């Protein structure tokens, strides 16, 4: 097919054509992917084996100082005038060995079973004494920390061997390193290390390690019946996933999966509505304020910005109070008893509308600046060509805005999926879901409401229900994470503003 033929087709035909074409090209694409596989594999192998090669080189070509570094980390560095770095490596090694002896070794050994014996109550005379032998959660946490420390050790170990060999070689040609050089490098060549070490350490300690542990907890039975240190927690494999998805897993067949489905569906509907209503209405408000000939532009904007300035939890609690069915001022003035936040369907609408009240000013602010960036001659030529306001919006304004704001939209969408404050402070997830009489509701879903998002359900499972099921909560969290991460990675990596990162520099 030639280009002319393609262009002469209608939109629908083009769509069909490209749809069929995808499948036609599929075999050749797969073949191409397969043919590249060996070279990719080789490259991967090269990357993995690079540290091994470094170690091998250090053993083969190293002098006695480099070889002694195999046992005493950093020896090859501080005997070659890089005293600070060498001593730091050595200190880490000493710290690591001490940690392994004191805590890490025992913890790792207990990781397989999460402890043999929980707490035991021994009666001595008239007094009960509780002795805690193994605390499953402590074992789990310490073993993950140990594993992270081992990984860091491995990286340091290879790095110091490599550096030692490098220093040895540069000494051959008469270049001697010093502490001053290290310092200079820290401010210049390896400045990224100086900048990133502390922030990334923070992320590792406060985000990465907890996330790993939480993922592991999804495979245990950590709940109100198994609360360490009183009782041990055990690995249960995929039992939690099974209880969520399969019939007869929890106390009631398939009830759990239907609850999960309802909450997930509302979470997605909420995220889509909350994101796009705010986006489009905010843009429209910004365009209206931007209209030529409107005065006091700054005042109108400032009025809207007031909402951003007030902390959102205050606005949300205020709204929840005003919308109260029996005592709220809105029903009071209308003289009605409209169940704004107590009817399952109306509550959902109310929440989305209130969220618009909170979110539109923010979008308006973002859009105002961007709308002014669109070249005015585009609009003029569109007007000369006879395009109406609607067509101008669809063909000029919207494509430009979408191009620039895709990353913002995605992060907004993800933020809305995990939007705890709006739901919890506005409706608290209520009204409670109703089930057919006689249904045995699993304890984990006893307080789940019809406006609950997955994140507020997780909060309830961990905090407010009588029966706290941390394991199931982390299963749900894991599922949310998989959905969100997949979706946003695909969109992020395909959005133009991420691809062309350096366009504006």
């Amino acid at each position, binding site marked *: 097919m030639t280009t002319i033929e393609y262009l002469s087709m209608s939109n629908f035909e083009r769509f069909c054509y490209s749809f069929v074409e995808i499948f036609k090209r599929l075999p050749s694409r797969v073949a191409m992917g397969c043919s590249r596989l060996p070279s990719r594999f080789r490259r991967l192998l090269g990357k993995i084996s690079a540290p091994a090669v470094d170690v091998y080189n250090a053993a083969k070509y190293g002098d006695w100082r480099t070889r002694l570094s195999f046992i005493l980390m950093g020896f090859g560095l501080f005997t070659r005038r890089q005293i600070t770095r060498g001593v730091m490596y050595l200190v880490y090694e000493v710290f690591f060995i001490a940690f392994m002896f004191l805590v890490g070794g025992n913890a790792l050994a207990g990781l397989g079973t999460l402890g043999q014996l929980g707490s035991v109550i021994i009666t001595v005379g008239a007094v009960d004494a509780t002795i805690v032998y193994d605390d499953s959660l402590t074992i789990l946490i310490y073993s993950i920390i140990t594993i992270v420390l081992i990984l860091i050790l491995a990286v340091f170990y290879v790095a110091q061997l490599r550096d030692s060999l490098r220093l040895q070689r540069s000494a051959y040609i008469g270049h001697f390193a010093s502490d001053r050089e290290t310092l200079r490098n820290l401010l210049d060549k390896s400045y990224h290390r100086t900048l990133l070490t502390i*922030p990334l350490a923070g992320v590792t300690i406060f985000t990465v390690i907890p996330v790993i542990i939480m993922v592991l907890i999804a495979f245990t039975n950590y709940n109100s019946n198994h609360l360490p240190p009183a009782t041990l927690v055990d690995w249960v494999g995929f039992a939690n996933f099974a209880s969520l998805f399969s019939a007869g897993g929890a106390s009631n067949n398939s009830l759990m999966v239907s609850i999960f489905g309802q909450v997930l569906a509302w979470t997605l509907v909420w995220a889509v509505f909350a994101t796009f209503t705010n986006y489009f209405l905010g843009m429209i408000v910004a365009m209206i304020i931007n209209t030529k000939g409107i005065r006091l532009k700054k005042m109108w904007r400032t*009025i809207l910005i007031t909402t951003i300035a007030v902390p959102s939890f205050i606005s949300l*609690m205020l709204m929840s109070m005003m919308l109260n069915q029996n005592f709220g001022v809105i029903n009071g003035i209308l003289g009605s008893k409209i169940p704004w936040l107590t009817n399952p369907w109306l509550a959902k609408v109310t929440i989305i509308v209130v969220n618009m009240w909170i979110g539109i000013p923010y979008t308006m602010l973002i859009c105002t600046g961007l709308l002014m960036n669109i070249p005015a001659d585009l609009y003029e030529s569109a007007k000369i060509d006879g395009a109406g306001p609607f067509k101008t919006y669809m063909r000029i304004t919207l494509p430009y805005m979408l191009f620039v704001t895709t990353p913002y939209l995605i992060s907004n969408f993800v933020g809305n999926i995990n939007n705890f404050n709006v739901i919890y402070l506005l409706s608290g997830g209520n009204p409670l879901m109703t089930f057919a009489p006689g249904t045995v509701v699993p304890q984990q879903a006893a307080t789940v409401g019809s406006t609950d998002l997955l994140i507020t359900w997780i909060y309830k499972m961990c905090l407010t229900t009588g029966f706290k099921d941390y394991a199931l909560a982390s299963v749900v969290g894991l599922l949310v994470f998989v959905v969100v991460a997949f979706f946003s990675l695909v969109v992020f990596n395909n959005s133009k503003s991420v691809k062309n990162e350096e366009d504006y520099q």
Partner: protein
Amino acid sequence: MDTSVKKAHYASHRRNKIIKNTAIYIFLVIISVIWLVPFLYMLLQSFSGHYEFDSVIPSTWSIHAYEFLFTSNEYQFWKWWLNTFAIACVTAVVQTLLTLMTSYALSRLRFKMRKAIMQFMLIIGMFPSFLGMVIIYYILRLLNMESSIYSLILIYIGGSAMNYYISKGFFDTIPRSLDEAAMIDGANKNTVFFRIIMPLSKPIVVYTLLMAFTGPWGDFMTASFYAQGVPDNFNVAVGIQNIMNPGGGTLNIANIPTFCAAGVLTAIPIMVLFFCLQRYYVEGVTGGAVKG
């Protein structure tokens, strides 16, 4: 004849324009009312003697609610307020520093693993943060540091690198030739960061500071979990929620003026700060959140 047609044309054009502008003004007035009335209502109710649900303007006036907040033993509002203020100040300074360091490195320096780090932080940030908090609480308990405002500060600071996105977007827009010129003149990367990029980035510095400062004021989820019901450790959000729905139960009607007064006292300092720094805020949002 020509001129009269033209005149009629212009007249109708102008009339259309006037109608259009009037419609726009009416629309703007309506949305201004929608956006402002709830806050005015809160201000009025905070001065009301007692809550009446069927009128916006209270029939009796008093400053009892404010008095109550100052003197009550039941609610230690000032303790909560000062807790939050202390947390916010420390968080603002440290978090801003860490966030800007991260985003500068990710935006202007080129090194191995840069893209990997960015993607990794993006992905890990999508994990429901509440679950991680349960574990951090347990870890802090091993260190005997749980349920205090220090643990809250640690947590807010700990995740600061993950907010790199907006400030990185801002740094991306500064021309690279500036760096190169400075480098040729013998500056190292540290000097470039502090002497060249920082002075140009005042809006994003102020924006990051503002966001880091206001964040702890609005945080309910983390703070309520870490306070564990101990009023000494409440921040403003948890405390005010406790005034409104004690025990997480239903609306406490008698407390509504108190709630409104507490809301006003919390909102006013932040609003003042916000309007003073509004210019920077707008520049930061439009320059960093989206590249344009």
